[in-house]
């Protein structure tokens, strides 16, 4: 468990905010958006484990998200499998795929890794589009059933909100524990220097593949949640643009911080919704944010805010001292 009381308190406050949020926004369209925020947060947390802690970029995470959604969707809508069983089998299948491609892919570094994951993502996207008999092709797959627990069906935005956020909150807690453990320290060691990590006795190649697989499995679960809450999926949601959007969420929120991905996911999901009138501008805003934040705020918004507040605090403190002396 997280031993640090401070972060436990933060987590408790955050969880209760999530629990109570529907009281403020009950019903209507916003609930639906908040379900998306939860799914995107889950995805951003998954990508952050790989990118933020281990320092390995992936431009193909939309593919794992899509594989989870499609395996779940096809297994339930076409073959009548139980949604929970479908979620688990999708996660297992995606885990296997990620583990298998992880070894050759993660041998690559930096730009090459980015291109290889990107290539993988595009191949999967093309397969979604072309295997019309199975996936329904570009026009999508419909009739995916909702989750249910012995008769209680998650068929409204409010119910799905609690379902999605329960999974997301648990994942945030688990990932916070993971990165504060021996494994988390090993991941950060890989991030700063693979050679040094290897010298310290970290099995670098295996650990990279393991974290890649974990990240893919979480993305797959997010995909299953997406499929069973939306009940309709189409390839357009799982393309290259979505991979970039996920990357933007993690970078904006703050690489390698627990709440950073949450921040990024909230911002990037709500921003386009609130900028409906400027729909075409959102892509430009993403691009600008990516460039500016990487250049001027490499720690993302979370660290940026931290820097600003601590600066203000020290300023304030010195003022107080000055006043006291004066």
């Amino acid at each position: 468990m997280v031993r640090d009381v401070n972060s436990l308190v933060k987590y408790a406050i955050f969880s209760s905010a999530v629990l109570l949020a529907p009281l403020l926004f009950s019903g209507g369209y916003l609930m639906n958006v908040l379900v998306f925020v939860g799914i995107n947060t889950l995805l951003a947390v998954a990508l952050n484990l790989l990118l933020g802690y281990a320092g390995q970029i992936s431009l193909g995470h939309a593919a794992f998200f899509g594989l989870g959604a499609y395996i779940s969707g096809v297994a339930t809508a076409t073959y009548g499998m139980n949604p929970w069983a479908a979620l688990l089998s999708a996660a297992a299948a995606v885990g296997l795929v990620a583990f298998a491609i992880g070894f050759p892919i993660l041998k690559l570094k930096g730009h090459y890794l980015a291109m290889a994951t990107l290539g993988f993502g595009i191949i999967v996207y093309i397969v979604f589009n072309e295997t019309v008999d199975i996936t329904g092709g570009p026009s999508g797959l419909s009739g995916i059933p909702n989750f249910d627990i012995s008769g209680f069906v998650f068929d409204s935005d409010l119910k799905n909100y609690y379902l999605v956020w329960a999974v997301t909150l648990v994942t945030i807690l688990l990932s916070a524990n993971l990165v504060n453990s021996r494994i988390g320290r090993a991941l950060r060691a890989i991030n700063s220097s693979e050679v040094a990590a290897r010298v310290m006795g970290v099995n670098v190649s295996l650990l990279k593949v393991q974290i890649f697989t974990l990240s893919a499995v979480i993305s797959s679960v997010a995909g299953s949640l997406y499929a069973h809450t939306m009940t309709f999926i189409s390839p357009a949601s799982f393309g290259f643009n979505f991979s970039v959007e996920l990357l933007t969420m993690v970078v904006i929120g703050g690489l390698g911080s627990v709440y950073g991905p949450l921040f990024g996911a909230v911002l990037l999901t709500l921003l386009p919704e609130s900028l409906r009138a400027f729909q075409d501008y959102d892509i430009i805003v993403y691009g600008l944010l990516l460039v500016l934040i990487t250049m001027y705020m490499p720690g993302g918004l979370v660290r940026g805010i931290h820097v600003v507040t601590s600066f203000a605090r020290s300023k304030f403190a010195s003022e107080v001292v000055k006043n006291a002396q004066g």
Partner: protein
Amino acid sequence: MPNCGCETETMSHQILQYALSGLSTGAIYSLIGIGFAIIYNSTGIINFAQGEFVMLGGMMTYFFLSLLRLPMLAAMCLSILLTTAVGVVFERLAIRPLRNANPLSLVIITIGGSILIRGIAMLQFGKDTHSIPAFSSNEPLVIADATILPQNLWILGITFLIIAANRYFFYHTINGKAMRACSHNRRAASLVGIGVKRMVLISFAISSALGSIAGIITAPLTMTSYDVGIMLGLKGFCAAIIGGMSSGVGTVFGGLLLGIFESLGAGLISSGYKDAIAFIILLLILFIRPQGLFRKAETERV
């Protein structure tokens, strides 16, 4: 079953036809790939915005032709110049301030830059697909039983000229030699008085110019829109990877090989999976021979 030979005849005819049309797409990939290689060799950066230069070349030419009614040649020159300016500005504003950043930041910066350029192009030129007129007639020519459009010959000819000019630049001019020196060892190059920063700027200028030319010469055949840059850029990168990131013959072969494979795959297997072929080749090369297919035969890296 009696074998009259006619089936194999049409088969080989088809293959010839596909290979011919693959050559000109391949030439485009080569040009884009050389752009990737030039920037990579002078900076160590894979410029994800490379494809956007290709898009800008085609879209700007369309814009100047149809809205400003400029003559063809003027429109082309102006869009090459403007795209080069975009490349230079991108280097000055986003790449130079970050010279010592880690690869991750550089990847993210160039992705951000490419999204930004694409978004601005979308606002400026709209989301429609456009075509520009072919450089000469549209009458297909017949060569050895296969037909080929004159535009394909333009593409091959212009690509050949550019590659020759490129080679001349890198081997017979002082700036070209200085850039090669930078690609071997930046630090040593700066010690002998080469302005490395200037060389990086020149490499961005050349790459964006090459990209825009590729975009212009292919636009009459394949159409152009604000989002063509992603795919073309990735395939150009694939060509450069096959060629081992050389800015010379290796990448040219890589591009041509990719173009032919793609065209054969689309014709003989399935056109829907055409784009997947390039990425499967890309992954295979990255997994098995990340140094490129021709590393031994071709070691120049500019």
